[in-house]
C-alpha cells in the first residue's frame, strides 16, 4: 500500500452541497411565504389574480414540505455521504471510474427529478398524500435515483480498506433501506390512463389502498419518512462531524450500539400516533402511543452520547460557532424527541392533533436539529473540499444567533397558537353549547401567525448568510490539507 494519504475525490459531494443550498433557499422561502399568507391572506394574490392559482396556499404547501424534505435534506444527506463515506471506508471515489460515473448520474437524475416535482406540484398534479405527492412517473424516477445511490453506497463499501463499518455508515445504510421500503409500499398506485385503455391524463393514478387502509399505510410511511430522512441520516452526520470537529472520541460505543438498534426496532411502530381517535383499530393506536414513549430512550441515547462526547471540552462551545451549531442541534433533537412522545399521549393528542402545535413540533425538529446539523456539516466540509479556510467566523456566529432566535420565535408562537386553538375548539358554555364558532378560533391566531412568520424569516435570513459564507469560502485563503486535523480553520 502506498504511504501518502489518500486523495479523496469530492466532485459529487460538491454538486450535492450546491443543491443543498439552492433547494434550502427554495424550500425555506416558500415556507416563509406560506407563513405570511396565513397571517395576511392577501398574499395569496402576491403575483396578481392571473397567477393566483399558482401562488395560493394549497398549491404552495406541498412544494414547501417536499423542497425541504427531498430537496434540502436529501441533498444534505447525499452531500455528506459522498464526503463521509470515502473517509471512513478509507477509499477514494477516484479509484473507481464506475462509482464516479454512478455518483454523477445520481446527481443529474436527482436534479431532473427535482425539476419535475416543482413543475408538477405547481400545476396541481399531486396524489394529495403528504410527502408522497408525486405521481407515478416521478415515483419511478425517484426509485431509479434511489437505486443509484444504493449502488454508490454498496459499491464503495465493496472496495473499502477499513473493514469495520463506522457508526455513521450504519445509519446511512439504514436510511437507504428504510426509505426504499416505505416509499415503494406507500406509493402503490395504478395509472388510470393505461388501466382504462387510454382515457384522461396520462400521469394520473389511483391508490391501491382505500380509506382507512390508505391512511394506515400513509402514516406508517409519513411517520417513518421523518425517521429515515430527518433522524437516521442526521444522526449519521453528527456521529461523524462532531467528533471530527471537536477532536474528541465518541463517548460510548455501547451507547451508540444500543441507540442504533433501539431506534431501528422502535421507530416503525410509532406511526399510529398520527391516527389517534381515527377509524384505525384501537390496538394500533395504543401501540403507536406506547412505542412513541419508548422511542425517547434510543433518541436520547444518541443525543446524550453526543453531548458527552464534548465532556471536558465545553470551552469549544463558547469558542467555535461550528460546535455551537452541532450542540444546539443535538439539544433540539432531545427537545423534539421529548415533545413528540408527549403529543402522542392520547389525552394530549386529543387537544394537539390538527392544531399548530404539531406544526411547531415539526419545525423545532427540522429547523433546530436537521437544518443546524446539515449546515454545520457543510461548514465542516467546506475547508476540506475547497481547501480554503471558512470565509468568516463572525458571520457564522451572527447567523447562529439569528437563526436560534428564529427557531425560538417559531416554536413558542406555535405552542401558544396550537393550545389556544385546541382549547377553543372544545370549549362549551354553561348551557352545553359550543362556546366559539370556528372563525373565532382562526382570527385569534393572527398575532401568533405573524410572530411565526417573522421567526421563519429570521431563519431564512440566516440561511442566506450561510449560503454567502460558503460562497465566499470558495475564494478565501488557501490552506493545506494537514492543517485540517480537527477544528475547521476560519477567518475572523
Amino acid at each position, binding site marked *: 500500500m502506498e504511504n501518502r494519504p489518500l486523495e479523496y475525490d469530492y466532485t459529487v459531494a460538491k454538486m450535492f452541497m450546491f443543491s443543498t443550498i439552492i433547494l434550502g433557499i427554495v424550500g425555506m422561502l416558500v415556507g416563509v411565504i406560506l407563513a405570511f399568507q396565513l397571517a395576511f391572506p392577501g398574499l395569496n394574490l402576491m403575483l396578481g389574480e392571473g397567477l393566483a392559482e399558482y401562488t395560493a396556499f394549497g398549491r404552495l404547501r406541498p412544494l414547501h414540505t417536499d423542497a425541504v424534505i427531498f430537496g434540502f435534506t436529501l441533498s444534505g444527506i447525499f452531500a455528506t455521504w459522498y464526503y463521509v463515506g470515502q473517509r471512513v471506508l478509507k477509499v477514494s471515489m477516484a479509484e473507481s471510474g464506475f462509482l464516479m460515473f454512478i455518483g454523477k448520474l445520481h446527481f443529474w437524475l436527482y436534479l431532473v427529478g427535482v425539476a419535475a416535482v416543482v413543475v408538477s406540484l405547481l400545476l396541481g398534479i399531486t396524489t394529495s398524500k403528504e410527502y408522497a405527492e408525486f405521481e407515478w412517473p416521478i415515483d419511478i424516477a425517484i426509485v431509479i435515483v434511489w437505486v443509484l445511490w444504493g449502488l454508490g453506497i454498496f459499491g464503495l463499501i465493496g472496495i473499502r480498506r477499513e*473493514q469495520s463499518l463506522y457508526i455513521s455508515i450504519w445509519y446511512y445504510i439504514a436510511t437507504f433501506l428504510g426509505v426504499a421500503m416505505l416509499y415503494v409500499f406507500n406509493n402503490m398506485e395504478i395509472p388510470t390512463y393505461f388501466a382504462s385503455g387510454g382515457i384522461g391524463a396520462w400521469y394520473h393514478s389511483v391508490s391501491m389502498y382505500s380509506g382507512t387502509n390508505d391512511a394506515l399505510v400513509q402514516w406508517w410511511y409519513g411517520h417513518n419518512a421523518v425517521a429515515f430522512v430527518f433522524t437516521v441520516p442526521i444522526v449519521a452526520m453528527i456521529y461523524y462531524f462532531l467528533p471530527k470537529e471537536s477532536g474528541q472520541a465518541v463517548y460510548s460505543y455501547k451507547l451508540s450500539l444500543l441507540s442504533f438498534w433501539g431506534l431501528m426496532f422502535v421507530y416503525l411502530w410509532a406511526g399510529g400516533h398520527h391516527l389517534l381517535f381515527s377509524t384505525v383499530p384501537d390496538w394500533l393506536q395504543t401501540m403507536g402511543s406506547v412505542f412513541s414513549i419508548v422511542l425517547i430512550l434510543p433518541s436520547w441515547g444518541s443525543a446524550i452520547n453526543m453531548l458527552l462526547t464534548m465532556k471536558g471540552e465545553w470551552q469549544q462551545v463558547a469558542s467555535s460557532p461550528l460546535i455551537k451549531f452541532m450542540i444546539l442541534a443535538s439539544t433540539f433533537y432531545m427537545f423534539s424527541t421529548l415533545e413528540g412522545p408527549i403529543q402522542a399521549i392520547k389525552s394530549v393528542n386529543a387537544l394537539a392533533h390538527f392544531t399548530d402545535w404539531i406544526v411547531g413540533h415539526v419545525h423545532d425538529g427540522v429547523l433546530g436539529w436537521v437544518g443546524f446539523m446539515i449546515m454545520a456539516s457543510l461548514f465542516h466540509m467546506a475547508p476540506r473540499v475547497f481547501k480554503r479556510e471558512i470565509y468568516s467566523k463572525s458571520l457564522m456566529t451572527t447567523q447562529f444567533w439569528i437563526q436560534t432566535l428564529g427557531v425560538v420565535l417559531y416554536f413558542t408562537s406555535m405552542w401558544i397558537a396550537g393550545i389556544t386553538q385546541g382549547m377553543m375548539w372544545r*370549549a362549551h358554555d354553561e348551557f352545553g353549547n359550543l362556546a366559539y364558532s370556528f372563525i373565532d378560533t382562526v382570527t385569534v391566531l393572527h398575532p401568533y401567525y405573524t410572530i411565526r412568520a417573522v421567526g421563519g424569516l429570521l431563519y431564512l435570513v440566516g440561511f442566506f448568510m450561510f449560503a454567502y459564507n460558503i460562497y465566499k469560502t470558495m475564494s478565501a485563503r488557501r490552506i493545506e490539507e494537514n492543517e485540517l486535523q480537527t477544528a475547521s480553520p476560519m477567518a475572523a
Partner: protein
Amino acid sequence: MFHWLEKRPFFFAVAVFVTIAFAGLIEILPNFAQASRPTIGTAPYSTLELAGRHVYIKNSCNACHSQLIRPFKAETDRYGHYSLSGEYAYDRPFLWGSKRTGPDLMRVGNYRTTDWHENHMWDPAGVVPGSIMPAYKWTFTNIADVDTAYAEQITIKNAFNVPYNKPIPMKDGSTTTVALADSLSGAHASALEEAKVVAADMKNQNVKDAVANGQIPEIVALIAYMNSLK
C-alpha cells in the same frame, strides 16, 4: 454479534431490514380486509363528484381541511356524527388531512348549500369576515377534467370491484345505484346532467353559460363533491 455484523455489510443490511420491516407487517397486514368494508349507505362517487374530488386534491384543500370527525362531544356538536371506517371505503386516496386551519369537511354537505359554496369559494372573507382561506376564482373558469375522473372510475371498478351499476344498500332499507356510463361520451353526458342541477342553484352567469354550452367548470364539480360529503 454486533462486532461480527459490523464487518459484514450484507448481513448487517439484512438485519436492519428485518428489524424495520417487522413492525409494518404486523401492524398493517391483519387489518387490511377488515377496514375496507363499506358501511350501509356509503356509495361510490359519481363521475362529476369524482372530478370535483380531483379539483379538491389539485388545490390541496386537504392542506387546511380535515375529513375526520373524532369521537368527542366538541367535534360531534360541531361537525356531526363521528367518522366510521366503512364510510371511507371508496376514498382513494383518503383525505383525512393533518391540519385544521379551516373546519372539518367530512359532512359539510349536511349544512352548506350550493349557493353558499359559490359565494364562499369566490370570496371567503366576504362570506365569513376574518377568513384566511384563499379565494378560488379560477375554478369558475377552469374546465373540470371529466375524462380522468371517468378513467379512474373504470380503473377502480375493474381493479377493486367498486360497485358501479350495482344495487347499494341504504340506511332506510332501500337500494340505490350509481351509474357508470359505458363510453366516454356517455360519461360526459351524465356528468353534464348532474352539473345542470348544481348550476341551477348558482348565479355566476359565466358558469351558467358554460354549463348550458356543455362545459363543466371546476367549481361545479367541486360543489357537487362537497354536496356529496354527508
